[in-house]
């Protein structure tokens, strides 16, 4: 099966309108890119911040986990859905 570029796949995880955090997105995509060093939680975080900066994703909420680390939660925007539709 032809796979889409990972950043696009990260955005595509939000297509059904769910709010997701980086860990949840990584869980959804990692089987598609099995064995690839590039498919790391750090790459997913970086792609999510980039997708948010250009308006494809919006901030939904954020919380601090048990280790004191930030866990941002994102949801796709109307613009993001439109961009995904046009790119598929």
């Amino acid at each position, binding site marked *: 099966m032809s796979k889409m*570029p990972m950043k696009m796949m990260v955005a595509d995880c939000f297509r059904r309108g769910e709010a997701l955090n980086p860990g949840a997105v990584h869980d959804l995509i990692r089987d598609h890119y099995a064995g690839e060093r*590039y498919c790391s939680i750090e790459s997913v975080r970086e792609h999510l*911040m*980039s997708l948010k900066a*250009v*308006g*494809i994703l919006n901030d939904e909420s954020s919380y601090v986990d048990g280790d004191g680390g930030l866990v941002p939660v994102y949801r796709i925007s109307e*613009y*993001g859905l439109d961009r995904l539709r046009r790119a598929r």
Partner: protein
Amino acid sequence: MTTMTARTALSAPDLKLRQDLSFAKRGLVFALLSGITWGLDGVILSLAFASPLLLDEACWLLAPLTVGALHDTFSALWLLCFNGATGRLRELGRTLRSKAVRPVILGALFGGPVAMSSYMLGIKFAGPAYVMPITALYPAVASVFAAVFLKEKVAPRAWFGLLLCVAGGVIVGYTPPEGSLGNEFYLGIAFALVATFGWGVEGVLATSGMDLLDPAVALNVRQLTSATVYLLVVVPLAGGYALFVPALTGAIGWVFPAAALTGALSYLCWYRAMNMTGVSRAMAINITYSLWGILFSAVFTEVEITTAIVVGALVITTGMVLVVGNPKEMACLRCTK
């Protein structure tokens, strides 16, 4: 211990704001690095242009296009090494097969062979005194396109800063006109406008593609596209491959991989910056390359620092401060609601 206490004391919204600001500021640092390394790239390439092989008047078009072809080909190879080392080679394959890559390829054609060939033809027909100030306008062209097509938000202060950066670039790069205007003058101006449009539109097309693509991979596609078109179309049309072997095997042979490495680093920073801080900010800061180029030339060669260069530097610096402004404005780059 103190760090941990301070970290946990911050609320989630505070930490999120800090994360967003850190992302935007990293983008600004990438933009500045792209300008510095592009300035260095130009200084290294000038060593090639000073060689007798490329100074031959009969090769006025072929020589710069051969340099452009070698630069982008080596740059594409360096980027393949980078993407291989960082585990992105399979992503490159997936990206080349995706629809999202089309604007990146189109941008590569505009910004690579089309703009560079037009620039050289413009210099030939109209002279650098007119062509360099015109082509220095490319960040302004890109910003207008970014505002229209990408809905990028640019504050009035940042627009003013951008204009100052462009004006500074013109002051630094200005050379007095020589002789009278020939019949081909307006053709040269038209080529200069095509080059300005090409470089301006490349940033917008590439940024549009990078919405859904990794910047390092998108850049590799850009350089592979540019190198392919140079090698298969532009160079044959300009006269053939006669300069390739003597250029690569002569005393200046080392210049091409070295300049391409600096160029690849510069483009990598530039593409990441456009993706992280927006086209207009990244372009405005990138244009400082004219300043860095002269500083590097003053250090490594015998270029004299003139009053115009100092004035241009002050104008560019003031413009950059205005463009950067308040990084909080960069948390969301576009009006997409």
